[in-house]
């Protein structure tokens, strides 16, 4: 009897169990435009627009002629695009007596940045390696002073360094500035490399010592090839940091060898002559171009670099 009843209900397509448990079934329906999403993306887009506006204003201003700037508002796109301001900013804008544009500052900055990056990283990576793997007596004390030193305002050490550089005859020269950048880059870079090399299993280092390798051989053959990612992070950190530096450039170089940032400031904030806003903006973009390029190319590594760099305070 029971069997027949079951058969009947099945035949009728009525499942008593399903009947009792009616309600939502299957995947939960999703609305792309939920209130939460509108709020979330709305806020993010608004903020993103705010962050992008200055870049946009810089670009459009740099592409306008001066008459158009005087008439229109800074947000409107250029009616007539001109690259003249860019050319002028690069080649003929004046700072004081020099009228060869930002190009001079650009090449100065290149000449400052390249050796500074190489030198500071070379020194700091060996330091970090020595600290992580060859702890000798007193090493930690020096390292502590170094890290504490990272918090000391530069202003406190500026003048003693002027004296030191003057003593060794490097004040005002390119190499003087390279040394300054290496000194002030040292705490954070050393920390970066020390932490990285500390994360390399100690047994690897021990194995190399049992194999008879010494300080430099372990560094070059074992550690260096393993540390390439951290070198990239350090390079990104240093290129942006040194390129963007203003204070050391203004103190430790002469007008002839001013880095790009200092020259840019002198061009834009010079009190002589009529203000050419389009040229100023072109010059500003030009100066920001190198770190921006590094930023956009390096992406995630840049974030890693600043997260590491952030420790320096």
């Amino acid at each position: 009897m029971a069997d027949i009843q079951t058969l009947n209900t099945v035949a009728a397509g009525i499942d008593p169990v399903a009947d009792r448990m009616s309600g939502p079934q299957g995947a939960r329906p999703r609305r792309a435009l939920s209130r939460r999403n509108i709020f979330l993306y709305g806020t993010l887009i608004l903020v993103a627009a705010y962050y992008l506006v200055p870049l946009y204003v810089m670009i459009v201003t740099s592409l306008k002629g001066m008459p158009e700037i005087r008439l229109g508002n800074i947000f409107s796109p250029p009616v007539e695009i001109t690259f003249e301001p860019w050319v002028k900013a690069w080649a003929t804008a004046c700072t004081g007596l020099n009228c060869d544009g930002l190009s001079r500052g650009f090449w100065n900055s290149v000449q400052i940045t390249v050796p500074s990056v190489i030198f500071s990283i070379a020194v700091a990576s060996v330091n970090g390696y020595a600290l992580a793997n060859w702890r000798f007596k007193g090493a930690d004390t020096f390292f502590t002073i170094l890290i504490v030193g990272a918090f000391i305002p530069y202003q406190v050490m500026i003048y003693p360094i002027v004296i030191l550089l003057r003593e060794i005859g490097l004040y005002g020269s390119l190499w003087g500035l390279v040394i300054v950048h290496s000194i002030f880059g040292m705490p954070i870079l050393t920390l970066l490399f020390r932490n990285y090399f500390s994360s390399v299993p100690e047994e690897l280092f021990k194995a190399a010592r049992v194999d008879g390798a010494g300080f430099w051989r372990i560094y070059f053959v074992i550690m260096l090839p393993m540390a390439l990612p951290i070198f990239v992070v350090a390079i990104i950190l240093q290129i942006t940091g040194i390129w963007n530096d203003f204070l050391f450039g203004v103190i430790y170089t002469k007008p002839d060898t001013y880095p790009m940032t200092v020259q840019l400031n002198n061009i834009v904030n010079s009190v002589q002559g009529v203000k050419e806003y389009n040229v100023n903006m072109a010059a500003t973009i030009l100066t920001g171009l190198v770190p921006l390029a590094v930023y956009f190319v390096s992406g995630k590594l840049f974030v890693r670099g600043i997260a590491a760099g952030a420790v320096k305070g």
Partner: protein
Amino acid sequence: MSTSGNAQRRPSQLFRNLNAKVASIPMILTALLVFLGGTVWTIVYSFTNSKLLPRLKFVGLDQYERLWSAPRWLTSIENLLVYGVLSLIFSLVIGFVLAALLDQKIRFEGVFRTIFLYPFALSFVVTGLTWQWILNPDFGVQNIVRAMGWESFTFNPLYDQDIVIYGILIAGLWQGTGLIMCLMLAGLRGIDEDIWKAARVDGIPMWKTYLFIVIPMMRPVFITTLVIIASGIVRLYDLVVAQTSGGPGGASEVPAKYVYDYMFLAQNLGQGFAASTMMLLSVAIIVVPWAYLEFGGHKRG
């Protein structure tokens, strides 16, 4: 078995790990000569009446008395306090909110993060000049709002002594909040997924979870961020130079600029040393308690 052999006498401690010591010479020199030596030197010379050249003629606290009676220094300190407090609050709030928004498993997270962070890649000089242009009263924001029909609209921070520091704050926040967002985002990502699951099962609303569970868990991140922002504030210099050159009428002066101007322009080294020593002191007030909490505590535990 004899105890003789080339290793019988203990090798001199000085020459153990010799290569490591040689390689550390730059670090040792930097630590001792520049960081330690330089700091002590500056502090010592801040008690002298050095003018064009450093001289060891001690005048006691004269330089400090002069410093604290100089209106320009007082303005600098006041500016730094206003800028500092506001910058701290806004950086933390904006940075955290942006990070929390980005942490909602949204699409295009990478794009948004790239946009929020790109100003940080720019130098303060570039930032300052850009905002100088945007805040330009004749062409910038004020002009545009007026052109839209609000004739009496006034927003002219760079030429108004009372609010010039806020103009600098706007630029500073634009440049720096991306970094704070990044640090906060890393902190948020470091929180155990299960915390969120537990809160959801318990039916705790999201804002409450953030406020009472997540933020307290992120205490170390907040403290580190705080120290980073704070020591950046004390160094505030390039931005002011580029954006306002300290104007109008010295209303946006900051301590770092005071130091530079007295050391290299006014040929009054003693004042510069005293001012920079004060800067060191203010950093010490921030950093020492932090270092104590961060590192001193562990030793006891």
